[in-house]
């Protein structure tokens, strides 16, 4: 495996199914579409967006980002361990990834709960419509991500399966959740 891997590297090596990359690119451009619509709407009434944005907690947003970055790191280590045949360690990293994903999930839900308690719902104003829309569609990708990680764990657990390709494919999906969030974070929490 390692040998093939090295040989492939010189000519270019795609981790996992190239098919998943088609999904990643397509979905990324789709999100760019959503982001641009958000930015265009934002230019129509910047004050409203700025005032509403101040109701979000930048700290929670940063915490979310750090958690997802860490989950990305552990899934990358999971792939690395699986490549080297250290399946126990790979499995541990996969569970760790799930764990960080779960922390993100809980923190996102509690953030929504706080905002709703403060009286900011989906249809309160345009900013909050976009806030709930972008975070929710991202959240949906996260939920699908748990299914994907489930497939990764399922592969790693039995010596009979252990398809490295599927492990890498799952990791590619999980990183997508991460990098999409990075942009969402900058657009909803940080920019002015």
């Amino acid at each position, binding site marked *: 495996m390692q040998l093939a891997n090295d040989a492939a590297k010189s000519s270019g090596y795609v981790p996992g199914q190239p098919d998943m990359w088609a999904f990643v690119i397509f979905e990324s451009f789709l999100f760019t579409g959503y982001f641009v619509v958000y*930015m*265009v709407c934002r230019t129509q009434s910047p004050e409203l967006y700025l005032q509403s944005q101040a109701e979000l907690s930048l700290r929670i947003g940063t915490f979310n980002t*750090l958690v997802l970055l860490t989950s990305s790191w552990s899934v990358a280590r999971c792939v690395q361990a699986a490549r080297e045949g250290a399946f126990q360690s790979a499995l541990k990293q996969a569970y760790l990834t799930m764990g960080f994903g779960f922390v993100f999930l809980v923190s996102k839900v509690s953030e929504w709960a706080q905002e709703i308690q403060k009286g900011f719902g989906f249809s309160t104003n345009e900013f909050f419509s976009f806030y709930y829309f972008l975070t929710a569609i991202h959240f949906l990708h996260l939920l699908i991500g748990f299914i994907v990680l489930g497939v990764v764990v399922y592969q790693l657990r039995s010596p009979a399966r252990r398809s490295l390709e599927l492990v890498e494919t799952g990791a590619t999906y999980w*990183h997508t959740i991460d*990098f999409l969030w990075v942009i969402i974070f900058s657009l909803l929490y940080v920019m002015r």
Partner: protein
Amino acid sequence: MNASFENRLLVVWLALCAVTIVSLIVGSLDGRVAHGTNAAITTSAIGIAVVKVRIIFREFMEVRHAPILLRRLTDAWVLVTATSLLGTYFAGLAFSMG
């Protein structure tokens, strides 16, 4: 090989976290009370995000070893997203001033 790769991932993770903290600081620069547009904050926020995304692509997702097509495609997405976001932002600014 093993250890070096492990170290590389660690460094990448640390760098990403550090940059995230920078955006936290940048985002707090105006004390979050001014409620004013701030092109400098916006530019650095989107700039930092784009850099982070590219690092995730190159390192975590191993695009740096990938065929040229995939490298180009991911870079194209990063570029298109950055320019369209900043483009709309500055066009909006210019429009509201003019």
